[in-house]
């Protein structure tokens, strides 16, 4: 293992990790350009590299891109990647009141801690942790998705009915296209371009970013206020103090992120939201969440960065990719002649450990690079006049929506959902429940139908859904979330929210 550490610390690998983190952070910060895309484009360049160096670059880009998503979430209210959805909930209110720089620094610190926890789990506990991934079958995914949907109650902060309406809209949108299980074609209205369903990233850009753009244009005031004229630096000391006071939140969120990352298909968005909702539930002043609570930013960022290391656990040990970027890296591994599986940790341990140390180093490098890039991003957004900012962001949204699959149809989806999102925001409907429904709907549906088929084959559907320990645990968590969010109380007195 020490040899692997030395290999990861070679000048070449350190330089590659640094370049990867910088490149990844910038790509992740641009709305629409995602970690998946960054990794996919760079895979061929790694073919000629030594296997572990190639993997270090890919891992570093991935880590950087997941973190970079926080910038646009905080400064433009647009999660650059789905993983940053929860970051925008308190990050943007912080930026609004002039604390954008503090939020950026906090997101960096949170990501570094989260990423480190995830990478350490991968380093020391990968083979036993992979068993967690296997214990999640269709039924567990179904309940996990239901649990994720129950977070709408927490996130909608009193306006429960509106949150539910948003969630339902998201679920209906998720039904569009051909069903994974069964192949039935639904709500396509004869449009073959809709067969593949509503793509998540263009929907995300549309629902979050386009309303911000429209508001930028129709409102006279500046996008972000410039509170102090003096240069305040990183506000590192302040951020560090906040982190120390919230150490339980940081550690809990990092562990949630690692755990959710290990379960294939759940991913960063769910991790961020679960950690956020837990942070809110246990906070002394839960009401502050949504109005710029630093703990919200910390929780989301610590969790989503921890999914990077967590996601590599099933990818490397089982050959089952945890997230889309993992899947591309898995392909690159096979090209390099590396066989995934439990034996990877014994037979080709040097490569795995060099890669894991590389990931760890990349995470630590995120501290200086993230702080510096974040500072420039903040200054840029604050000082560029709206007349230049709005068209620049608008251009990026179009490029981002188009670039994923070079598909103009995705741009149309983005614009349509964007206008829809702006209109429903007038009546207080927020984008998060809609996006949550869109992301979790297919997971819930596939899990339910698969569970139903398997339960039918064994003649015990009831036991299939309600009789297994993990399912019961998730159902209990869902019940606790709903009870503590006061959804039952507020549903009665819906007339006067808050």
């Amino acid at each position, binding site marked *: 293992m020490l040899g692997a550490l030395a290999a990861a610390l070679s000048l070449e690998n350190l330089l590659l990790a640094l370049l990867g983190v910088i490149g990844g952070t910038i790509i992740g910060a641009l709305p629409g350009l995602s970690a*998946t895309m960054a990794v*996919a484009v760079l*895979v*061929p360049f790694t*073919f000629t590299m030594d296997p572990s160096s190639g993997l270090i670059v890919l891992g570093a880009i991935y880590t950087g891109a997941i973190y970079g998503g926080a910038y646009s979430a905080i400064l433009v209210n647009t999660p650059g990647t789905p993983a940053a959805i929860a970051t925008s909930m308190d990050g943007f209110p912080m930026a609004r009141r002039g604390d954008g720089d503090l939020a950026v620094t906090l997101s960096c610190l949170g990501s570094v801690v989260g990423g480190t926890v995830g990478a350490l789990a991968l380093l020391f506990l990968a083979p036993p942790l992979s068993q967690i*991934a*296997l*214990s*999640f*079958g*269709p*039924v567990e995914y179904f309940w996990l998705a239901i649990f994720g949907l129950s977070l709408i109650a927490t996130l909608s902060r009193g306006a429960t009915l509106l949150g539910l309406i948003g969630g339902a809209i998201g679920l209906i949108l998720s039904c569009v*296209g*051909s*069903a*994974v*299980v*069964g*192949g039935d*074609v639904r709500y396509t209205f004869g449009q*073959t*371009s809709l*067969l*593949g*369903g509503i793509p998540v990233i263009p929907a995300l850009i549309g629902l979050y970013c386009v309303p911000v753009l429209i508001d930028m244009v129709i409102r006279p005031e500046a996008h972000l206020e410039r509170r102090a004229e003096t240069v305040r630096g990183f506000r590192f000391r302040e951020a560090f103090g906040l982190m120390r006071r919230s150490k339980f939140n940081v550690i809990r969120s990092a562990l949630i992120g690692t755990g959710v990352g290990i379960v*294939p*298909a759940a991913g960063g968005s769910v991790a961020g939201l679960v950690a956020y909702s837990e942070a809110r539930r246990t906070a002394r002043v839960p009401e502050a969440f949504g109005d710029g609570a630093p703990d919200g930013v910390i929780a989301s960022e610590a969790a989503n960065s921890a999914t990077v290391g967590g996601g590599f656990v*099933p990818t490397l040990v*089982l*050959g*089952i*990719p945890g997230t*889309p970027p*993992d*899947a*591309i890296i*898995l*392909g*690159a591994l*096979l*090209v390099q*002649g590396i*066989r*995934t*599986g*439990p*034996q990877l940790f014994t037979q080709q341990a040097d490569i795995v450990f060099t890669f894991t140390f590389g990931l760890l180093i990349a995470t630590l490098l995120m501290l200086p690079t993230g702080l510096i890039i974040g500072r420039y991003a903040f200054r840029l957004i604050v000082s560029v006049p709206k007349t230049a900012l709005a068209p620049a962001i608008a251009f990026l949204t179009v490029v981002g929506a188009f670039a994923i*699959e*070079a*598909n103009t149809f995705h741009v149309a989806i983005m614009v349509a959902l964007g206008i829809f999102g702006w209109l429903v925001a007038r009546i207080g409907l927020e984008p998060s429940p809609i996006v949550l429904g869109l992301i979790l709907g*297919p997971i819930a549906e*596939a899990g339910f139908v*698969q569970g139903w*088929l*398997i339960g*039918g*084959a*064994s*003649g015990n559907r009831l036991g299939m859904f309600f009789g297994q320990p993990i399912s019961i645990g998730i159902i209990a968590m869902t019940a606790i979330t709903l009870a503590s969010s006061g959804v039952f109380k507020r549903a009665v007195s819906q007339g006067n929210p808050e």
Partner: protein
Amino acid sequence: MKPFVKTTALATSLCVAALAAAAQEYPSQPVDYIIPYNPGGESDVTARFQEQFWRDVTGEDVVISYRPGAGGATAWASLGGFDPDGYTIMNVNFPHAILQPSIRDVGYQTEDVIPAYIFHYTPDAIVVRADSPYQTLQDLIDFANENPGALTFGGSGTNSANHLAAVRFGQMADVQVTYVPFGGSAPAMAAVLGGQIGAGMTYTTQGVRAGEQVRVLAIATEERLDIFPDVPTFTELGFDYVAGAYRGVTVPRDTPDAVRQQLSDIIAEINDIPEFGAQMEENGYVLVDVPHSEMADWIAARQADYAPGIEILRGN
């Protein structure tokens, strides 16, 4: 004087040859290679294997991108929208591209996605967890006989190669099985490894990936494979069954024959590289070579082969 004439003649002929080559030089710029699935699966991995050698063979780059959705149909339905110049090529899978349009309106016809070359197939394989009670295929068939419908087969997608294989296996062995579709080969294998599913109706490649965690009961090849010396073929076990997912490279329907032929030659040349072949075989893929000239016959043969299974899938 003679050497001079000779040199001039040689130079001239070289020039002419070069010009002629330039006129039909393909590719003379990077080629976009679209994968109709999410990254990490068999279509992606084999394209990545090809990508390594593409530059050596053609002198140009190939750029891989993904357009997943509807089990491949999203990409194949969009193929007609690209310029038919050979600079957008797409991965295409069979039986998928025959099954889908014959069961539903999916926005394309098989004729729209005829490949220029079929370069490999992933043989069907029945895979169980290493600690499963089924030691042999017969154990599995016996269980299915005694408990109709209780045996669950996990596979990738609906109306896919795995789905058709499950249906055909049920017919051949005269047993009733429950096919459970997943959103890809990897999640289906996860359910096999997790014990939520009785057996995987999947590909040899997944058996390689899962390594010692699984036991492969039978594979649908003509001969045993070097990577699985102890695994019998269906033929050995008395079933006349050689099948799997065939993958090829296709271009828009109106692409000129000359370009199709050149693309076919390029893919053939990559298939001939020993290093490429070794990489493919190690991972469970079986190389096949169906060039442009033989494609029409090959497609017709597949259509006839799949027809009985399609009837059953239609009825579902």
